C-alpha cells in the first residue's frame, strides 16, 4: 500500500517540486579589502575540506590578447618570489593531499585548488604567490612554449572543439571573443616574455581580482588570511574599456571534403550580456529545451525525420559583452543538409509553440542542473568566482532562481526566432 502511495506522490509531484537553491542569500558573505580585493566566503562544515578560487577579471576577451592570458596562467606556476622553483608551489599542495590548477576563459582567469580545511593557510599563500608574485622570467617563458604549443595542437584532433572554435570565430567577428582562449599556434610562436609581464602588470591587481573560499572555514579566518597574503601597495585599478559586440549578419561557412563521411554543424544565436539577467535566464531555458535530457527537442526533431543522428548538443556562454547560444549537430554527411533545414525550421516553429507545460518542465530542468552542477565545494567556488568576474549589474547569484521563474514563453519564443549570426559546417569521419 505504501508503495502505491509513493507512486502517487511521484506522479503528482511533477509541478510541485521545489528545487533547493545551492546559493541561498544568507549562505554567502561578501567583503572588499582596502586594496579593492573582493572576498567571498560560503561556509559549509559538512566535510573537512576547503575549495579556494582566485579569479582575475582578465581573460582572452581582452583586446589583442593573442593567447597571453593562457600563457601567463601556465607561467604563474613556474616560480614565484616565495616558491622560486618551477611547480614547487603546486607540489607543496599535492604533498598535503590537495591539488591546485589554473583555467583561462574569455572573461577571466581562475587559479583554484582544494585541500583539507586545516591547510587553508598554505593554499592561500600559494594562490597569492601565483597570482600576485610570479617571477615570469624569460627563461621560464621560453621553456614553457613547447608545452603550450603541444596543448593547442592536441585540441586540433577534437572535432567538437574545432567546431566550437570556428563557431565563436564567426559568431564574434571583429571582436576579441572570436579568438580561442589559448591563442593560435601563430600567436604563441610570436609572443615575447615582455608582453606577458606587461599583461600581468596591467591586469593582475587586487582591485581586479576576487578571492572565493567555500567549505569548512570561518569567514573571519579568510578575511584575516586575505589581509596577510593579498595586501599590496597597488594604486587603484582602471578597468578595461568595453568593446561592444556589433550587430552582424548571418555568416555561412562550410568546409566539407568529398571524402568526408560525417558532418558537424553549428548554429550560433545572439543573446544578452551578463548584466541582462532576464535575457541570460531566457537563454538558459532555451538551450535546455533544445539540447538537454532525454526529451531534448533538437534530437527529437532529427530522429522524427529518420535522420542518422550521431550526436547533438549545445552550449551557452554568458559573457560580459554579449552572449551566444551554440547548437551543434553531428550527422552522417548524406543527412547534413536536411538536418540543418530541420533545425532552422524547428527553431522557427518553436517560437510560436511553447506551451506552459514545456516552459515549466524546462525551468525545472534548468534549476535542477544548476543545483547538480554546484554539488562540490570546488564547483561552488568556481561558480561564485565566475560570477565575480562578470559584470552582472545589480544582480547577484541568489537572484538567479527568481529570474528563471520569471521568464515567459513569449521571451523564449522570441529568442528561438532570432536570426543566427553564424552557421558552420565541418566535415570529418572515416
Amino acid at each position: 500500500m505504501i508503495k502505491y502511495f509513493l507512486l502517487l506522490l511521484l506522479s503528482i509531484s511533477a509541478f510541485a517540486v521545489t528545487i533547493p537553491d545551492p546559493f541561498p542569500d544568507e549562505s554567502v558573505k561578501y567583503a572588499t579589502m582596502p586594496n579593492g580585493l573582493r572576498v567571498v566566503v560560503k561556509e559549509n562544515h559538512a566535510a573537512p575540506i576547503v575549495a579556494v578560487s582566485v579569479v582575475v577579471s582578465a581573460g582572452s576577451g581582452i583586446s589583442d590578447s593573442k593567447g597571453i592570458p593562457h600563457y601567463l596562467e601556465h607561467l604563474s606556476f613556474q616560480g614565484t618570489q616565495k616558491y622560486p622553483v618551477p611547480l614547487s608551489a603546486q607540489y607543496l599542495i599535492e604533498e598535503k593531499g590537495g591539488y591546485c590548477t589554473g583555467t583561462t576563459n574569455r572573461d577571466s582567469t581562475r587559479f583554484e585548488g582544494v585541500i583539507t580545511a586545516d591547510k587553508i593557510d598554505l593554499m592561500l599563500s600559494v594562490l597569492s604567490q601565483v597570482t600576485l608574485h610570479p617571477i615570469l622570467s624569460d627563461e621560464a617563458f621560453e621553456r614553457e612554449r613547447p608545452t603550450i604549443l603541444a596543448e593547442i595542437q592536441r585540441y586540433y584532433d577534437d572535432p567538437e572543439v574545432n567546431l566550437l572554435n570556428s563557431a565563436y570565430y564567426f559568431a564574434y567577428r571583429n571582436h576579441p571573443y572570436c579568438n580561442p582562449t589559448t591563442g593560435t599556434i601563430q600567436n604563441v610562436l610570436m609572443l615575447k616574455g615582455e608582453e606577458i609581464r606587461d599583461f600581468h602588470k596591467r591586469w593582475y591587481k587586487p582591485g581586479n581580482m576576487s578571492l572565493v573560499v567555500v567549505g569548512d572555514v570561518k569567514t573571519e579566518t579568510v578575511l584575516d588570511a586575505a589581509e596577510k597574503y593579498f595586501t599590496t601597495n597597488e594604486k587603484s585599478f582602471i578597468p578595461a574599456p568595453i568593446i561592444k559586440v556589433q550587430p552582424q549578419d548571418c555568416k555561412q561557412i562550410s568546409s566539407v571534403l568529398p571524402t568526408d563521411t560525417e558532418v558537424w554543424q553549428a548554429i550560433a544565436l545572439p543573446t544578452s550580456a551578463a548584466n541582462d539577467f532576464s535575457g541570460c535566464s531566457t537563454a538558459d531555458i532555451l538551450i535546455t529545451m533544445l539540447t538537454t535530457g532525454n526529451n531534448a527537442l533538437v534530437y527529437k526533431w532529427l530522429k522524427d525525420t529518420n535522420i542518422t543522428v550521431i550526436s547533438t548538443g549545445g552550449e551557452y556562454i554568458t559573457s560580459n559583452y554579449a552572449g551566444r547560444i551554440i547548437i551543434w549537430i553531428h550527422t552522417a554527411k548524406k543527412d547534413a543538409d536536411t538536418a540543418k533545414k530541420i533545425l532552422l525550421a524547428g527553431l522557427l516553429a518553436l517560437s510560436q509553440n511553447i506551451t506552459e507545460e514545456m516552459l515549466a518542465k524546462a525551468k525545472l530542468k534548468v534549476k535542477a542542473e544548476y543545483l547538480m552542477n554546484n554539488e562540490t565545494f570546488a564547483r561552488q567556488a568556481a561558480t561564485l568566482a565566475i560570477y565575480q568576474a562578470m559584470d552582472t549589474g545589480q544582480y547577484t547569484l541568489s537572484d538567479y532562481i527568481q529570474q528563471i521563474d520569471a521568464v515567459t514563453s513569449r521571451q523564449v519564443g522570441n529568442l528561438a526566432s532570432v536570426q543566427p549570426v553564424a552557421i558552420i559546417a565541418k566535415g570529418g569521419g572515416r
Partner: protein
Amino acid sequence: MRYLTLLILCLLTLCAYSENLTLTNGVRVITRRMAIAPIASIEILIDYSAMDEPAMQSGLREAVMVTMLKNINNLPDIADIGGNINVELKEDCLEFAAKVPANQIDSAIFLLHKIITNPDLNDNIILQVLNELAARKFQQPDDSMNIAYRMSENEIFANHPYYPMSESKFKFNRLTPDNIRLAYQQYIIPSNCIIAAAGDIDNASAGKTATMLFSDWKGGNKIQRDVRQVQLLTESDVQLVEMPVNSTAVMMAFPGPGLKHPDSLTMQVINHLLSSGTGGRIFKSIREKQRLAYDAATLYAPYADGAMFTAYTITDRSLMERVKNALVEELSLLQTKEATQAELNRAKEMLIGEYSISHQSSSQYAFDLAWNKLCDKPDNYDEMLPGLIRKITPADIIKVSRRWFTRYTLSIVLPQIQAEN
C-alpha cells in the same frame, strides 16, 4: 504508558539502524550522509559480470539491461522531480544510478526499484530491444589517444570477456527472448544486488525506504562464477598505425591487478607516483624536463579481476622515439631504484586526498560504497583506506612493479603524411 512504550520502540529502531545492512532476501544496503549540497544519489549495482556471459551469447547482459530500462516508459519521468537516471553496462556489473534533489530520494529509490524488479519481459519488447541493439552504429574514436587506447585494450584483454563489451563481436540476432528471460531470472536477483545511498540524506530514512521496497523481491540462488584473471603477456610487441589525426599518441600498456587483488592498492600508489599532479615522475620527466609533450601521464582504473595499466603521451611525430624511450626508462627505474620517502608520501597523500575530495560528489561516493562492497571490501573500507595506503613502502613499489611491468604492448598512432600537409 502505551505511547511511551511506542516512543521508546521507535527510538530503539532508529538507534539500531545500521549504515550497512543485508535484507533477508540478500539485498545489501549501504547509506552514508554527507550534506555538502541538498542532493542525494542512489547507486544500485547488480553483480552480473562479463564473465557470466556464455561465449556464444556475448551481448546478453546488455540486452537484459536495455530490456529492463524499457520499463522506464511506463514510469513517471525522473526529470519532473529534477533528477536524472544513469544506466551503464560495466565490465563487472550492471549499474543503475539516480541523482536527485535531496527531498526526492524516496522517489528515486522507488523508480530504480521498479526498473530493476518489475520489468516487462514479453516477446515484443525483447525483440524490439534486440533489433535496436543489432542496428546500432558505433562511433569510431577520432583522436590519436583514444585510438591507441583501443589498440592497447585489444592486446591486453585478448580473448578475455572484459573486452570488448560492445560492438561488432555481438551477435544480437543469435539471442532469443527466452535467453533474456532466463538471464534475468538467474542474475537479476536480490543476492546480486547492492544499493548505496549517499549525500544529504537521513541514513535511517533512506535505509527504511530501500528495505520497504526491496524486501519483498524474490529470486533464486547466486550462480558460482568461473573467474578468469587477466594474464601477463607472453611477449612484448609494438603496434604502429597511421591515421588521419593531427597528434601522435605513444601508449605503453601492461596487464594489471584487479581491485580484488592484493597488489591493487600499491598499483594505485604507483600510478600517483608516476603521474598524478605536477610531481609525478612521468610528468616531470617528459613534460617539465624534456618538454616533449603537454599530456604525459599514466592511467590505472582496475576492474574487479583485472586491469590495464597505461603510460602515455600525446606528442609530435618527430618526438615519438624520444617519448617512447622516456616511458621505458621511467618504468624500468621503478623496478630498480627505491622511491624516496618524500615522493612516495606525496603520491600516497594525493591518493588519499583524491579519494576524500571525490566523495563530495554524492554519486561518486555512492558508487564507491557499492563498488567496494561488490569487490568484497569490508564495510568500513573507506575509513580504513588512508591507513592501508600509508603502510605501503618503497620495497612494495619495487615488488609490485617487478611483478606487473614485465612485457608490454606499445601502441603508436601517427598522423598520416597527407594529413600533416
